[in-house]
Protein backbone atom coordinates (compact mmCIF):
# COMPACT_ATOMS: atom_id res chain seq x y z
CA UNK A 1 0.00 0.00 0.00
CA UNK A 2 1.45 3.40 -0.94
CA UNK A 3 2.21 5.76 1.91
CA UNK A 4 -0.27 8.31 0.62
CA UNK A 5 -2.98 6.13 2.11
CA UNK A 6 -5.58 6.96 -0.51
CA UNK A 7 -8.03 4.10 -1.03
CA UNK A 8 -8.30 2.66 -4.54
CA UNK A 9 -12.09 2.60 -4.35
CA UNK A 10 -14.20 4.22 -1.70
CA UNK A 11 -17.98 3.84 -1.78
CA UNK A 12 -20.18 5.61 0.76
CA UNK A 13 -23.96 5.58 1.16
CA UNK A 14 -24.48 4.33 -2.36
CA UNK A 15 -28.09 4.06 -3.53
CA UNK A 16 -29.31 2.98 -6.94
CA UNK A 17 -32.88 2.59 -8.12
CA UNK A 18 -34.28 1.41 -11.42
CA UNK A 19 -37.64 3.17 -11.44
CA UNK A 20 -39.43 1.96 -8.32
CA UNK A 21 -37.00 -0.87 -7.72
CA UNK A 22 -34.32 0.05 -5.19
CA UNK A 23 -31.41 -2.22 -6.05
CA UNK A 24 -28.68 -0.70 -3.87
CA UNK A 25 -29.83 0.55 -0.49
CA UNK A 26 -26.85 2.19 1.14
CA UNK A 27 -23.58 0.47 0.33
CA UNK A 28 -20.30 1.41 2.05
CA UNK A 29 -17.08 -0.15 0.95
CA UNK A 30 -13.35 0.51 0.81
CA UNK A 31 -10.86 -1.25 -1.42
CA UNK A 32 -7.22 -0.56 -0.62
CA UNK A 33 -4.59 -0.51 -3.38
CA UNK A 34 -3.42 -4.02 -4.18
CA UNK A 35 -6.37 -5.63 -2.42
CA UNK A 36 -8.54 -8.33 -3.94
CA UNK A 37 -12.15 -7.98 -2.83
CA UNK A 38 -14.55 -10.81 -3.67
CA UNK A 39 -18.27 -10.10 -3.78
CA UNK A 40 -20.77 -12.91 -3.29
CA UNK A 41 -24.52 -12.98 -2.84
CA UNK A 42 -27.73 -14.36 -4.29
CA UNK A 43 -29.00 -13.47 -7.75
CA UNK A 44 -30.54 -10.02 -7.87
CA UNK A 45 -28.80 -8.81 -4.71
CA UNK A 46 -27.14 -5.95 -6.59
CA UNK A 47 -23.58 -7.25 -7.09
CA UNK A 48 -23.35 -6.32 -10.76
CA UNK A 49 -25.03 -3.00 -10.16
CA UNK A 50 -22.48 -2.14 -7.47
CA UNK A 51 -19.60 -3.01 -9.79
CA UNK A 52 -21.12 -1.07 -12.68
CA UNK A 53 -21.58 2.01 -10.50
CA UNK A 54 -17.84 2.04 -9.78
CA UNK A 55 -17.05 2.85 -13.42
CA UNK A 56 -20.36 4.64 -13.93
CA UNK A 57 -21.82 2.20 -16.44
CA UNK A 58 -24.77 2.81 -14.11
CA UNK A 59 -25.51 6.27 -12.74
CA UNK A 60 -25.95 6.05 -8.96
CA UNK A 61 -29.10 7.61 -7.53
CA UNK A 62 -27.22 9.00 -4.54
CA UNK A 63 -24.07 8.45 -2.53
CA UNK A 64 -20.39 8.92 -3.08
CA UNK A 65 -17.80 7.03 -5.08
CA UNK A 66 -14.11 7.95 -5.01
CA UNK A 67 -11.57 6.29 -7.22
CA UNK A 68 -8.03 6.98 -6.06
CA UNK A 69 -9.41 9.89 -4.08
CA UNK A 70 -11.23 11.48 -7.02
CA UNK A 71 -14.98 11.95 -6.77
CA UNK A 72 -16.14 10.27 -9.98
CA UNK A 73 -19.71 11.48 -9.60
CA UNK A 74 -18.56 15.08 -9.93
CA UNK A 75 -20.34 16.36 -13.06
CA UNK A 76 -17.14 18.15 -14.07
CA UNK A 77 -15.17 14.94 -14.24
CA UNK A 78 -14.26 13.35 -17.59
CA UNK A 79 -15.80 9.91 -17.10
CA UNK A 80 -13.92 8.46 -20.07
CA UNK A 81 -10.60 9.19 -18.38
CA UNK A 82 -11.79 7.57 -15.17
CA UNK A 83 -12.92 4.48 -17.07
CA UNK A 84 -9.63 4.19 -18.91
CA UNK A 85 -7.96 3.59 -15.52
CA UNK A 86 -10.47 0.90 -14.47
CA UNK A 87 -10.45 -2.37 -16.39
CA UNK A 88 -13.69 -4.31 -16.59
CA UNK A 89 -14.29 -7.94 -17.46
CA UNK A 90 -17.81 -9.16 -18.22
CA UNK A 91 -19.56 -12.47 -17.81
CA UNK A 92 -20.27 -12.56 -21.56
CA UNK A 93 -16.68 -11.52 -22.55
CA UNK A 94 -17.99 -8.84 -24.96
CA UNK A 95 -15.04 -9.04 -27.34
CA UNK A 96 -15.50 -7.02 -30.51
CA UNK A 97 -16.45 -9.71 -33.04
CA UNK A 98 -15.55 -7.66 -36.12
CA UNK A 99 -11.94 -7.16 -34.98
CA UNK A 100 -9.05 -9.59 -34.66
CA UNK A 101 -7.69 -10.40 -31.24
CA UNK A 102 -4.83 -7.96 -31.82
CA UNK A 103 -7.18 -5.14 -32.85
CA UNK A 104 -9.40 -5.87 -29.86
CA UNK A 105 -6.35 -5.15 -27.72
CA UNK A 106 -5.03 -2.13 -29.60
CA UNK A 107 -8.11 -0.12 -30.55
CA UNK A 108 -8.67 1.59 -27.20
CA UNK A 109 -4.94 2.03 -26.61
CA UNK A 110 -4.77 3.96 -29.85
CA UNK A 111 -8.08 5.81 -29.73
CA UNK A 112 -8.20 6.59 -26.02
CA UNK A 113 -4.58 6.70 -24.89
CA UNK A 114 -3.27 7.95 -28.21
CA UNK A 115 -0.50 5.36 -28.34
CA UNK A 116 1.35 4.81 -31.58
CA UNK A 117 0.55 1.66 -33.49
CA UNK A 118 3.95 0.19 -32.63
CA UNK A 119 3.61 0.83 -28.92
CA UNK A 120 0.04 -0.47 -28.85
CA UNK A 121 0.99 -3.69 -30.63
CA UNK A 122 3.91 -4.21 -28.28
CA UNK A 123 1.71 -3.77 -25.20
CA UNK A 124 -0.93 -6.04 -26.74
CA UNK A 125 1.59 -8.80 -27.42
CA UNK A 126 2.97 -8.54 -23.92
CA UNK A 127 -0.50 -8.97 -22.43
CA UNK A 128 -1.46 -11.78 -24.77
CA UNK A 129 1.66 -13.61 -23.67
CA UNK A 130 0.62 -12.98 -20.10
CA UNK A 131 -2.69 -14.80 -20.61
CA UNK A 132 -1.02 -17.52 -22.67
CA UNK A 133 -2.58 -16.72 -26.05
CA UNK A 134 0.34 -15.43 -28.09
CA UNK A 135 -0.62 -17.74 -30.95
CA UNK A 136 -4.08 -16.15 -31.34
CA UNK A 137 -3.11 -12.59 -32.36
CA UNK A 138 -4.64 -12.87 -35.82
CA UNK A 139 -7.72 -14.91 -34.87
CA UNK A 140 -11.26 -13.56 -34.71
CA UNK A 141 -13.13 -13.96 -31.41
CA UNK A 142 -15.65 -16.36 -32.96
CA UNK A 143 -12.86 -18.87 -33.50
CA UNK A 144 -11.84 -18.98 -29.84
CA UNK A 145 -13.25 -21.07 -27.01
CA UNK A 146 -15.09 -19.28 -24.23
CA UNK A 147 -12.12 -19.59 -21.93
CA UNK A 148 -9.79 -18.14 -24.56
CA UNK A 149 -12.23 -15.31 -25.24
CA UNK A 150 -12.34 -14.41 -21.58
CA UNK A 151 -8.56 -14.41 -21.34
CA UNK A 152 -8.41 -12.12 -24.38
CA UNK A 153 -10.94 -9.87 -22.65
CA UNK A 154 -8.67 -9.72 -19.60
CA UNK A 155 -5.67 -8.96 -21.80
CA UNK A 156 -7.70 -6.25 -23.54
CA UNK A 157 -8.46 -4.57 -20.23
CA UNK A 158 -4.84 -4.95 -19.07
CA UNK A 159 -3.55 -3.32 -22.24
CA UNK A 160 -4.90 0.00 -20.97
CA UNK A 161 -2.52 -0.31 -17.99
CA UNK A 162 -5.39 0.12 -15.55
CA UNK A 163 -4.86 0.81 -11.86
CA UNK A 164 -7.61 -1.61 -10.91
CA UNK A 165 -9.81 -4.32 -12.42
CA UNK A 166 -13.49 -5.15 -11.99
CA UNK A 167 -14.64 -8.70 -12.76
CA UNK A 168 -18.34 -9.52 -13.02
CA UNK A 169 -18.70 -13.29 -12.78
CA UNK A 170 -15.88 -13.86 -15.27
CA UNK A 171 -16.20 -17.66 -15.24
CA UNK A 172 -19.97 -18.11 -14.97
CA UNK A 173 -20.52 -18.47 -18.72
CA UNK A 174 -17.72 -21.01 -19.16
CA UNK A 175 -17.76 -24.76 -19.45
CA UNK A 176 -16.34 -26.22 -16.21
CA UNK A 177 -13.15 -27.47 -17.86
CA UNK A 178 -12.32 -23.95 -19.10
CA UNK A 179 -12.75 -22.19 -15.77
CA UNK A 180 -9.31 -23.16 -14.46
CA UNK A 181 -7.30 -21.31 -17.12
CA UNK A 182 -9.18 -18.06 -16.50
CA UNK A 183 -8.79 -18.36 -12.73
CA UNK A 184 -5.06 -19.02 -13.19
CA UNK A 185 -4.72 -15.75 -15.08
CA UNK A 186 -6.65 -13.90 -12.39
CA UNK A 187 -4.53 -15.48 -9.67
CA UNK A 188 -1.32 -14.32 -11.38
CA UNK A 189 -2.82 -10.88 -11.74
CA UNK A 190 -3.66 -10.72 -8.04
CA UNK A 191 -0.13 -11.84 -7.14
CA UNK A 192 1.32 -9.09 -9.30
CA UNK A 193 -0.38 -6.60 -6.98
CA UNK A 194 -3.40 -5.58 -9.09
CA UNK A 195 -6.31 -4.06 -7.19
CA UNK A 196 -9.32 -6.23 -7.98
CA UNK A 197 -13.04 -6.36 -7.27
CA UNK A 198 -14.41 -9.74 -8.25
CA UNK A 199 -18.03 -10.86 -8.27
CA UNK A 200 -17.75 -14.63 -8.25
CA UNK A 201 -19.21 -17.92 -7.16
CA UNK A 202 -15.78 -19.57 -7.15
CA UNK A 203 -15.39 -19.92 -3.39
CA UNK A 204 -12.07 -21.79 -3.68
CA UNK A 205 -10.59 -18.92 -5.66
CA UNK A 206 -12.01 -16.36 -3.24
CA UNK A 207 -10.59 -18.18 -0.23
CA UNK A 208 -7.15 -18.51 -1.78
CA UNK A 209 -6.75 -15.13 -3.45
CA UNK A 210 -9.17 -12.76 -1.75
CA UNK A 211 -8.10 -10.29 0.94
CA UNK A 212 -11.67 -9.35 1.71
CA UNK A 213 -15.00 -11.01 1.10
CA UNK A 214 -18.29 -9.18 0.91
CA UNK A 215 -21.66 -10.86 1.14
CA UNK A 216 -24.49 -8.84 -0.38
CA UNK A 217 -28.18 -9.46 -0.04
CA UNK A 218 -31.11 -7.32 -1.06
CA UNK A 219 -29.03 -4.25 -1.93
CA UNK A 220 -26.91 -4.04 1.21
CA UNK A 221 -23.64 -5.52 2.43
CA UNK A 222 -24.69 -7.99 5.08
CA UNK A 223 -21.28 -9.20 6.07
CA UNK A 224 -17.66 -8.63 5.20
CA UNK A 225 -14.35 -9.96 6.42
CA UNK A 226 -11.47 -12.23 5.49
CA UNK A 227 -12.74 -14.86 3.04
CA UNK A 228 -11.78 -17.82 5.23
CA UNK A 229 -13.66 -16.28 8.16
CA UNK A 230 -16.78 -15.46 6.18
CA UNK A 231 -16.80 -18.85 4.52
CA UNK A 232 -16.12 -21.04 7.52
CA UNK A 233 -17.65 -18.98 10.27
CA UNK A 234 -20.37 -16.66 8.91
CA UNK A 235 -21.85 -14.40 11.58
CA UNK A 236 -25.18 -13.66 9.96
CA UNK A 237 -28.03 -16.05 9.41
CA UNK A 238 -28.55 -14.79 5.84
CA UNK A 239 -24.90 -15.48 5.01
CA UNK A 240 -25.18 -18.95 6.48
CA UNK A 241 -28.33 -19.65 4.50
CA UNK A 242 -26.70 -18.51 1.27
CA UNK A 243 -23.48 -20.45 1.83
CA UNK A 244 -25.31 -23.63 2.73
CA UNK A 245 -26.96 -23.42 -0.69
CA UNK A 246 -23.86 -22.78 -2.80
CA UNK A 247 -21.18 -24.79 -0.97
Amino acid at each position, binding site marked *: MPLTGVAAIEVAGLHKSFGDLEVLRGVDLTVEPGQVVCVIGPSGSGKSTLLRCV*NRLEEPTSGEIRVEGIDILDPEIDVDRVRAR*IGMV*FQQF*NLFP*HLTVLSNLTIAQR*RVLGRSKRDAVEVARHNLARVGLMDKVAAYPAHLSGGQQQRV*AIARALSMDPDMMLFDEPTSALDPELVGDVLDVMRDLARSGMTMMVVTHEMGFAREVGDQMIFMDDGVIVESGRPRDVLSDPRHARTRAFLSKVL
Partner: protein
Amino acid sequence: MRRTTRRRIRRGVLYLVFAAAVAAVVLAADWDRIRANFLQPDVARAQLPEIITIAAKNTILFTVISFSGGLVLGIVLALMKLSTVAPYRWLAIAYIELFRGLPALLTIFAMAYVLPIAFQVHVPGGTIGAGLLALILVAAAYMAESIRAGIQGVPKGQTEAARSLGMSAGRTMLSIVLPQAFRIVIPPLTNEFVLLIKDTSLLFIAGSTLQNKEITTFARDGVINSNNSTPLVMAAMLYLLITIPLTRLVAVLERRLGRSR
Protein backbone atom coordinates in the same frame (compact mmCIF):
# COMPACT_ATOMS: atom_id res chain seq x y z
CA MET B 1 -49.52 -45.92 -52.00
CA ARG B 2 -46.37 -44.92 -50.11
CA ARG B 3 -45.85 -41.27 -49.22
CA THR B 4 -42.65 -40.90 -51.23
CA THR B 5 -44.33 -42.39 -54.30
CA ARG B 6 -47.25 -40.03 -53.98
CA ARG B 7 -44.89 -37.07 -53.64
CA ARG B 8 -43.00 -38.15 -56.74
CA ILE B 9 -46.21 -38.36 -58.75
CA ARG B 10 -47.31 -34.94 -57.57
CA ARG B 11 -43.98 -33.45 -58.64
CA GLY B 12 -44.26 -35.14 -62.04
CA VAL B 13 -47.69 -33.60 -62.59
CA LEU B 14 -46.34 -30.15 -61.70
CA TYR B 15 -43.56 -30.51 -64.28
CA LEU B 16 -46.10 -31.50 -66.93
CA VAL B 17 -48.28 -28.47 -66.20
CA PHE B 18 -45.21 -26.22 -66.45
CA ALA B 19 -44.16 -27.73 -69.79
CA ALA B 20 -47.71 -27.34 -71.15
CA ALA B 21 -47.79 -23.67 -70.12
CA VAL B 22 -44.46 -22.95 -71.83
CA ALA B 23 -45.61 -24.74 -74.97
CA ALA B 24 -48.87 -22.79 -75.02
CA VAL B 25 -47.03 -19.44 -74.79
CA VAL B 26 -44.54 -20.40 -77.50
CA LEU B 27 -47.30 -21.62 -79.84
CA ALA B 28 -49.68 -18.75 -79.19
CA ALA B 29 -47.04 -16.07 -79.69
CA ASP B 30 -46.78 -14.49 -83.10
CA TRP B 31 -43.02 -14.81 -83.53
CA ASP B 32 -42.79 -12.76 -86.70
CA ARG B 33 -44.47 -9.80 -85.09
CA ILE B 34 -42.38 -10.14 -81.97
CA ARG B 35 -39.21 -10.19 -84.01
CA ALA B 36 -40.33 -7.19 -86.06
CA ASN B 37 -41.35 -5.11 -83.06
CA PHE B 38 -38.91 -6.09 -80.32
CA LEU B 39 -35.86 -7.71 -81.87
CA GLN B 40 -34.82 -5.53 -84.81
CA PRO B 41 -31.02 -5.74 -85.34
CA ASP B 42 -30.94 -2.44 -87.29
CA VAL B 43 -32.74 -0.55 -84.55
CA ALA B 44 -30.55 -2.18 -81.93
CA ARG B 45 -27.40 -1.17 -83.76
CA ALA B 46 -28.60 2.43 -83.91
CA GLN B 47 -28.78 2.56 -80.10
CA LEU B 48 -25.15 1.58 -79.78
CA PRO B 49 -22.83 2.63 -78.35
CA GLU B 50 -24.65 5.50 -76.59
CA ILE B 51 -27.11 3.28 -74.73
CA ILE B 52 -24.08 1.90 -72.90
CA THR B 53 -21.56 4.75 -72.88
CA ILE B 54 -24.12 7.36 -71.90
CA ALA B 55 -27.33 5.76 -70.63
CA ALA B 56 -26.01 2.78 -68.64
CA LYS B 57 -23.13 4.90 -67.34
CA ASN B 58 -25.63 7.53 -66.12
CA THR B 59 -27.88 4.96 -64.49
CA ILE B 60 -24.93 3.60 -62.52
CA LEU B 61 -23.60 7.07 -61.72
CA PHE B 62 -26.99 8.36 -60.53
CA THR B 63 -27.52 5.24 -58.43
CA VAL B 64 -24.12 5.51 -56.77
CA ILE B 65 -24.64 9.21 -56.04
CA SER B 66 -28.10 8.81 -54.56
CA PHE B 67 -27.08 5.69 -52.62
CA SER B 68 -23.97 7.29 -51.08
CA GLY B 69 -25.81 10.49 -50.24
CA GLY B 70 -28.75 8.52 -48.88
CA LEU B 71 -26.44 6.35 -46.78
CA VAL B 72 -24.77 9.30 -45.07
CA LEU B 73 -28.05 11.10 -44.46
CA GLY B 74 -29.68 7.80 -43.45
CA ILE B 75 -27.04 7.22 -40.75
CA VAL B 76 -27.61 10.73 -39.42
CA LEU B 77 -31.38 10.16 -39.35
CA ALA B 78 -30.98 6.77 -37.65
CA LEU B 79 -28.80 8.32 -34.95
CA MET B 80 -31.34 11.13 -34.53
CA LYS B 81 -34.11 8.60 -34.16
CA LEU B 82 -32.13 6.84 -31.42
CA SER B 83 -31.21 10.10 -29.71
CA THR B 84 -32.13 10.70 -26.09
CA VAL B 85 -33.08 14.25 -27.07
CA ALA B 86 -36.78 14.11 -27.96
CA PRO B 87 -36.92 16.89 -30.60
CA TYR B 88 -34.26 15.08 -32.66
CA ARG B 89 -36.39 11.95 -32.55
CA TRP B 90 -39.51 13.84 -33.61
CA LEU B 91 -37.66 15.50 -36.47
CA ALA B 92 -36.33 12.16 -37.70
CA ILE B 93 -39.73 10.49 -37.43
CA ALA B 94 -41.44 13.34 -39.30
CA TYR B 95 -38.80 13.25 -42.03
CA ILE B 96 -38.98 9.48 -42.48
CA GLU B 97 -42.78 9.43 -42.56
CA LEU B 98 -42.89 12.31 -45.05
CA PHE B 99 -40.45 10.97 -47.60
CA ARG B 100 -41.62 7.38 -47.36
CA GLY B 101 -45.19 8.49 -47.70
CA LEU B 102 -44.74 10.58 -50.85
CA PRO B 103 -44.23 9.00 -54.26
CA ALA B 104 -40.60 9.47 -55.32
CA LEU B 105 -41.82 10.93 -58.61
CA LEU B 106 -43.63 13.71 -56.78
CA THR B 107 -40.57 14.50 -54.67
CA ILE B 108 -38.37 14.70 -57.76
CA PHE B 109 -40.87 16.97 -59.46
CA ALA B 110 -41.11 19.20 -56.39
CA MET B 111 -37.35 19.50 -56.01
CA ALA B 112 -36.78 20.17 -59.69
CA TYR B 113 -39.59 22.65 -60.39
CA VAL B 114 -41.46 23.77 -57.28
CA LEU B 115 -38.51 24.55 -55.03
CA PRO B 116 -36.73 26.90 -57.45
CA ILE B 117 -39.92 28.85 -58.14
CA ALA B 118 -41.40 28.92 -54.65
CA PHE B 119 -38.23 29.47 -52.62
CA GLN B 120 -35.67 30.63 -55.19
CA VAL B 121 -33.54 27.66 -54.18
CA HIS B 122 -31.26 26.46 -56.93
CA VAL B 123 -29.51 23.14 -56.55
CA PRO B 124 -26.19 22.84 -58.39
CA GLY B 125 -26.50 20.69 -61.49
CA GLY B 126 -29.79 22.19 -62.61
CA THR B 127 -32.98 20.17 -62.65
CA ILE B 128 -31.16 16.86 -62.88
CA GLY B 129 -29.11 17.86 -59.82
CA ALA B 130 -32.33 18.68 -58.01
CA GLY B 131 -33.79 15.34 -59.10
CA LEU B 132 -30.76 13.53 -57.72
CA LEU B 133 -31.07 15.41 -54.46
CA ALA B 134 -34.69 14.26 -54.28
CA LEU B 135 -33.59 10.66 -54.76
CA ILE B 136 -31.02 11.10 -51.96
CA LEU B 137 -33.72 12.45 -49.65
CA VAL B 138 -36.06 9.57 -50.42
CA ALA B 139 -33.35 6.89 -50.18
CA ALA B 140 -32.23 8.28 -46.82
CA ALA B 141 -35.73 7.89 -45.39
CA TYR B 142 -35.84 4.21 -46.35
CA MET B 143 -32.27 3.47 -45.29
CA ALA B 144 -32.64 5.24 -41.93
CA GLU B 145 -35.12 2.63 -40.74
CA SER B 146 -32.88 -0.29 -41.73
CA ILE B 147 -29.83 1.34 -40.18
CA ARG B 148 -31.67 2.06 -36.95
CA ALA B 149 -32.69 -1.59 -36.72
CA GLY B 150 -29.09 -2.59 -37.43
CA ILE B 151 -27.72 -0.35 -34.69
CA GLN B 152 -30.23 -1.73 -32.23
CA GLY B 153 -29.29 -5.24 -33.30
CA VAL B 154 -25.78 -4.81 -31.92
CA PRO B 155 -25.74 -6.24 -28.38
CA LYS B 156 -25.61 -3.72 -25.55
CA GLY B 157 -22.55 -5.46 -24.12
CA GLN B 158 -20.53 -4.16 -27.08
CA THR B 159 -21.21 -0.56 -26.14
CA GLU B 160 -20.54 -1.29 -22.49
CA ALA B 161 -17.22 -2.97 -23.25
CA ALA B 162 -16.12 -0.05 -25.41
CA ARG B 163 -17.22 2.58 -22.89
CA SER B 164 -15.53 0.69 -20.05
CA LEU B 165 -12.27 0.96 -22.02
CA GLY B 166 -12.70 4.72 -21.96
CA MET B 167 -13.99 5.22 -25.50
CA SER B 168 -16.32 8.18 -25.92
CA ALA B 169 -19.90 7.68 -27.08
CA GLY B 170 -19.03 8.93 -30.57
CA ARG B 171 -15.93 6.79 -30.91
CA THR B 172 -17.89 3.75 -29.69
CA MET B 173 -20.56 4.36 -32.32
CA LEU B 174 -18.00 4.84 -35.08
CA SER B 175 -15.53 2.05 -34.30
CA ILE B 176 -17.64 -0.58 -32.56
CA VAL B 177 -21.38 -0.24 -33.19
CA LEU B 178 -21.64 0.99 -36.79
CA PRO B 179 -19.25 -1.61 -38.29
CA GLN B 180 -21.30 -4.37 -36.67
CA ALA B 181 -24.61 -2.75 -37.55
CA PHE B 182 -23.39 -2.52 -41.13
CA ARG B 183 -23.23 -6.31 -41.42
CA ILE B 184 -26.78 -6.66 -40.19
CA VAL B 185 -27.85 -4.02 -42.64
CA ILE B 186 -26.19 -5.34 -45.81
CA PRO B 187 -29.23 -7.30 -47.07
CA PRO B 188 -31.77 -4.46 -46.70
CA LEU B 189 -29.27 -1.95 -48.11
CA THR B 190 -28.64 -4.14 -51.16
CA ASN B 191 -32.35 -4.21 -51.66
CA GLU B 192 -32.42 -0.42 -51.45
CA PHE B 193 -29.58 -0.19 -53.97
CA VAL B 194 -31.45 -2.32 -56.49
CA LEU B 195 -34.60 -0.28 -55.95
CA LEU B 196 -32.58 2.88 -56.53
CA ILE B 197 -31.21 1.56 -59.82
CA LYS B 198 -34.76 1.34 -60.99
CA ASP B 199 -35.85 4.61 -59.36
CA THR B 200 -33.24 6.53 -61.37
CA SER B 201 -35.63 6.02 -64.30
CA LEU B 202 -37.96 8.49 -62.58
CA LEU B 203 -35.42 11.22 -63.21
CA PHE B 204 -36.90 11.63 -66.70
CA ILE B 205 -39.37 14.03 -65.16
CA ALA B 206 -36.52 16.36 -64.19
CA GLY B 207 -35.87 16.81 -67.89
CA SER B 208 -32.96 15.45 -69.83
CA THR B 209 -30.35 16.47 -72.31
CA LEU B 210 -28.63 13.76 -74.30
CA GLN B 211 -25.71 13.79 -71.89
CA ASN B 212 -27.75 12.99 -68.78
CA LYS B 213 -30.26 10.46 -70.06
CA GLU B 214 -30.30 7.23 -68.12
CA ILE B 215 -31.34 3.84 -69.51
CA THR B 216 -35.13 4.17 -69.40
CA THR B 217 -35.28 7.70 -70.79
CA PHE B 218 -32.78 6.83 -73.47
CA ALA B 219 -34.73 3.74 -74.50
CA ARG B 220 -38.07 5.55 -74.45
CA ASP B 221 -36.69 8.22 -76.78
CA GLY B 222 -35.24 5.43 -78.92
CA VAL B 223 -38.70 3.85 -79.20
CA ILE B 224 -40.23 7.16 -80.27
CA ASN B 225 -37.54 7.92 -82.83
CA SER B 226 -37.42 4.47 -84.42
CA ASN B 227 -41.11 3.63 -84.04
CA ASN B 228 -40.00 0.23 -82.79
CA SER B 229 -39.82 -1.35 -79.34
CA THR B 230 -36.43 -2.99 -79.65
CA PRO B 231 -34.75 -0.34 -77.41
CA LEU B 232 -37.04 -1.40 -74.55
CA VAL B 233 -35.76 -4.96 -74.76
CA MET B 234 -32.21 -3.64 -74.71
CA ALA B 235 -33.01 -1.51 -71.66
CA ALA B 236 -34.44 -4.50 -69.84
CA MET B 237 -31.32 -6.54 -70.60
CA LEU B 238 -29.07 -3.74 -69.38
CA TYR B 239 -30.93 -3.45 -66.08
CA LEU B 240 -30.64 -7.18 -65.51
CA LEU B 241 -26.97 -7.09 -66.50
CA ILE B 242 -26.43 -4.57 -63.71
CA THR B 243 -28.69 -5.91 -60.98
CA ILE B 244 -28.12 -9.66 -61.17
CA PRO B 245 -24.30 -9.62 -60.81
CA LEU B 246 -24.76 -7.09 -58.02
CA THR B 247 -27.08 -9.24 -55.94
CA ARG B 248 -24.81 -12.25 -56.55
CA LEU B 249 -21.77 -10.24 -55.46
CA VAL B 250 -23.45 -9.14 -52.25
CA ALA B 251 -24.47 -12.71 -51.47
CA VAL B 252 -20.81 -13.73 -51.72
CA LEU B 253 -19.72 -10.75 -49.63
CA GLU B 254 -22.26 -11.63 -46.98
CA ARG B 255 -21.01 -15.20 -46.76
CA ARG B 256 -17.43 -13.93 -46.39
CA LEU B 257 -18.31 -11.51 -43.62
CA GLY B 258 -20.33 -14.21 -41.90
CA ARG B 259 -17.16 -16.22 -41.43
CA SER B 260 -15.54 -13.80 -39.01
CA ARG B 261 -18.53 -13.92 -36.73
